[in-house]
């Protein structure tokens, strides 16, 4: 089905659409990204009053947070209201994965997925905003579809799921004329309630999608092959990771890293001076801050099987460590070992919280 654009204005059409969803009580509250009045930045908002929907930006190519983590604070306890959440594919995968870890309850969530072909690092987005031409959403989206060079995040370059699964409604721009319409997929009852004309899906969508997915899958394979060459030994890893300053930003931003009390924030890692000196004596010298590689390898043990490849870890790193690359490489192997696809099937239990009695792969 499609929604025709009102006066060719994608932003106005989306504003009206989401206002409708709130006004018609399809959801009681709406969790949606909106741009700040200047248009220079955006944030997730939780909207109760339909008149406060003014600048919704579900397609804006920046991802300040992985929304899954924010949804967790909204649904960890029963919110007692129906919450509509407008999220991208990687965020929806995060929601599903966190639901399996009992950090999100899906009962009151109405998931609305949006097409996403990539988001930019904040610095890169700023550059475009400050350039002479400025940022034009339509141009950006059509460039992404046509494959014109766009500076998107590494995680997005190799992401082969532009369309979210496990959602009740999909909004999209792939395979439609963005100057005229938006794609929507939902149940017939909801379409009727929202006054969307029942029409068959645009025929081009599937075709365009499969081309994009095939291309991205190829890019991912290439990326993994390069990584395997890059991280052959532990010294290769240290070349990059020795500059970690242990700020824990990657841990904070990772949607899967949900422990309320992380072992690295406890006094287990507050060593006595004589302990540091003993270690220094053994090796002749040690690096400060200490335990940085231990931190990354431990996180890898905890997360690898459930890593949903959103790349927020690398985006959050102030020292430009290839955290995403490491997790992608190792995560891919661990997930293959257990034939597990994180964020996909809600009934499948994550490998780390379950076991089998019969012989398992080692």
């Amino acid at each position, binding site marked *: 089905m499609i929604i025709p654009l009102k006066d060719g204005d994608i932003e106005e059409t989306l504003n009206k659409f989401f206002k409708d969803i709130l006004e018609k009580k399809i959801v009681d509250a709406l969790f949606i990204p909106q741009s700040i009045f200047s248009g220079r930045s955006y944030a997730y908002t939780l909207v109760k009053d339909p008149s406060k929907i003014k600048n919704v930006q579900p397609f804006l190519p920046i991802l300040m947070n992985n929304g899954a983590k924010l949804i967790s604070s909204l649904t960890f306890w029963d919110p007692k209201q129906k919450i509509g959440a407008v999220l991208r594919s990687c965020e929806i995968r995060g929601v599903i994965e966190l639901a399996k870890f009992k950090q999100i309850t899906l009962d009151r969530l109405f998931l609305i997925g949006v097409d996403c072909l990539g988001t930019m690092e904040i610095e890169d987005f700023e550059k475009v905003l400050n350039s002479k031409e400025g940022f034009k959403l339509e141009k950006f989206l059509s460039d992404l579809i046509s494959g014109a060079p766009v500076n998107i995040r590494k995680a997005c370059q190799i992401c082969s799921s532009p369309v979210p699964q496990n959602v009740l409604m999909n909004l999209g721009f792939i395979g439609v004329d963005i100057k005229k319409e938006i794609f929507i997929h939902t149940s017939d009852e909801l379409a009727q309630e929202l006054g969307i004309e029942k029409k068959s899906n645009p025929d081009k969508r599937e075709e365009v999608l499969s081309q994009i997915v095939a291309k991205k899958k190829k890019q991912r394979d290439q990326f993994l092959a390069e990584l395997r060459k890059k991280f052959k030994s532990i010294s290769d890893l240290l070349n990059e990771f*020795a500059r970690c300053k242990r700020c824990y930003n990657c841990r904070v931003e990772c949607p899967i890293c949900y422990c309320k009390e992380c072992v690295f924030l406890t006094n287990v890692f507050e060593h006595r001076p004589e302990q540091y000196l003993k270690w220094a004596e053994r*090796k*002749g010298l040690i690096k400060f801050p200490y335990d940085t590689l231990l931190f990354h390898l431990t996180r890898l043990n905890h997360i690898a099987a459930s890593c949903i490849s959103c790349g927020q870890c690398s985006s959050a790193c102030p020292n430009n460590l290839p955290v995403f690359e490491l997790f992608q490489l190792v995560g891919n192997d661990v997930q293959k070992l257990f034939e597990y696809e994180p964020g996909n099937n809600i009934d499948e239990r994550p490998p780390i919280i379950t076991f*089998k009695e019969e012989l*398992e792969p080692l």
Partner: protein
Amino acid sequence: MEFEPKIIAFVCNWCTYAAADLAGTSRIQYPPNVRIIRLMCSGAVDPIYILKALLDGADGVLIGGCHPGDCHYQNGNYKARRRFAILRTILRDLGIPDERVRLEWISASEGKKFADTITNMVEELKKLGPSPFKTMWEI
């Protein structure tokens, strides 16, 4: 002087620890390269313990648990097996040989198996040489 590897062994109270005890009381000889740390279950071995031991320069790490089906707490060793599989995949990706970290099922009556495991592990580690982490300060 010949290189003598240092092995840290995380062993289960109910089986491998008793096996080590049995090896001693039965006067079975095995190399003195192992430092045993007793835990209540192999399922209590957090990967962080193994990694810490490795990064701080242990040449090898052994995890000893009850045979599948024999866990004192029903399923601790099954959980240990999963965690070990994940850890091993990670270590392989980073080029750390399998011989450095081993998971063995050794029951309370298998004093001989405990001694043989340590003997074999020491041999393998001598062939591999000292752990590279011993001298790496960049970690």
